[in-house]
């Protein structure tokens, strides 16, 4: 189908976008990559009266390292981030996650910030941001604020952004050298939405115990979530298969998946257990390699 009629305005900077959003309130939607919003408009699931295009804002597509974090600007395309040297060398976890988003043509336009603002519960970027304890920077009429990922994703397509705020950047804290990582996702076909996705980080101390464990999951509830109980189980223990199996079981019990057309809740729970177990093994293999 075609989208319903709307009026279009291109913001020339963030300040103007905030002003337009304040002026038009709920009637307006922000347009970045448009790879989720425009399908919803074409299906008439979304009928904004006004579309505020962010794509003309200059200098907003940066992918840089700032204070030990990867900073990704609101117009940085998934395709550019996937190919960026800094992502390949410093945060391959993010590159791996991006490669699972839709297809090349979607990633040519889709943005990382937009993916977080859309907040699809099965999305890849929110899963990675949450695992790394990253945050979203937002600009509103009353100024700028940073929102931790743990407080940002509230539920199905819901975030902590106020209706007058524009998300301008994502910050992904870079893991310390030697931290192992894994991103695993199961979808029925390449490019489909994940049924379950898992991000894992593991760092070992000099004596071989786990000193950092982060596990986040997408597709297992209304918002991506950290498997905190499984993480706690892993800390200060020496990694082995039995420990990982126990953590995977724990992770599958602390999620609240729902039945939907893609998969039953029970299937998602089992998938989460399998993927967490594999992700821990994979992260450990990378951690060991990087320490040696």
């Amino acid at each position, binding site marked *: *189908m*075609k*989208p*319903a*009629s*709307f*009026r*279009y*305005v*291109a*913001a*020339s900077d963030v300040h*103007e976008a905030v002003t*337009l959003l304040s002026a*038009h309130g709920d009637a307006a939607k922000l*347009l970045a990559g*448009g*790879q989720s919003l*425009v*399908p919803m408009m*074409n*299906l008439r699931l979304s009928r904004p009266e*006004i*579309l*505020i*295009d962010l*794509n*003309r804002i200059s200098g907003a597509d940066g992918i840089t390292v700032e204070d030990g974090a990867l900073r990704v600007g609101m117009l940085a395309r998934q*395709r550019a981030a996937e190919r960026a040297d800094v992502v390949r060398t410093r945060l391959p976890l993010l590159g791996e996650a991006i490669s699972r988003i*839709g*297809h*090349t*043509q*979607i990633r*040519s*336009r889709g943005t990382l910030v937009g993916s977080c603002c859309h907040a699809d519960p099965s999305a890849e970027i929110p899963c990675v941001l949450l695992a790394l304890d990253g945050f979203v920077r937002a600009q509103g009429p009353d100024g700028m604020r940073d929102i931790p990922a743990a407080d940002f994703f509230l539920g199905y397509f819901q975030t902590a952004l106020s209706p007058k705020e524009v998300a301008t950047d994502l910050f992904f804290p870079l893991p310390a050298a030697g931290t192992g990582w894994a991103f695993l996702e199961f979808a029925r076909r*390449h*490019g489909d939405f994940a049924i379950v996705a898992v991000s894992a980080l593991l760092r070992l101390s000099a004596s071989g115990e786990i000193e950092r464990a982060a596990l986040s999951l997408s597709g297992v509830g209304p918002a991506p979530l950290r498997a905190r109980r499984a993480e706690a189980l892993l800390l200060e223990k020496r990694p082995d298969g039995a420990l990982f199996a126990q953590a995977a079981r724990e992770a599958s019990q602390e999620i609240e998946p729902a039945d939907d057309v893609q998969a039953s809740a029970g299937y998602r729970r089992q998938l989460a257990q399998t993927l967490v177990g594999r992700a821990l093994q994979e992260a450990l293999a990378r951690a060991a390699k990087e320490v040696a």
Partner: protein
Amino acid sequence: MQPLERIRVHLSVNGHAVSQLVDARRTLADFLRSDLGLPGTHIGCEQGVCGACTVLLDGVSVRSCLIFAAQLEGSAVETVEGLAGDALHPLQEAFHRNHALQCGYCSPGFLMAARDLLEENPSPSEAEIRVALSGQICRCTGYENIVQAVREAAGALQSEGRDA
């Protein structure tokens, strides 16, 4: 800044300068087909899933059903109509030789996605070709021949020493 129902855009399409007043809700796909009379870009699902409407925007392949024409001030668009010069493009030649199309509905999208791939990676492996084309759906199930055609075109372009 006032939101507008109709917007004038200036862009380049297949190397030709275009200046046109467009409805805000006009997608690039409909703009190409209905306003510019370039029906080579096909429309399948209109929700970014099937890949039939794939074109190049500033050199990279995108879904033209998911971009509004109003957004394209100063952009360069290339459609399947821009591929052939006096002779068919090597990708088109290879599709022809390998029977890489049956009904042809998906072909413009496959050609533009393949062109993007070969521009970035002139000698892709078969696995890389399959990943690059994974966003294009062919309901005649002609994938084997399409992959074969892209491999052949990559070789032909390399031996000619030209870019895709």
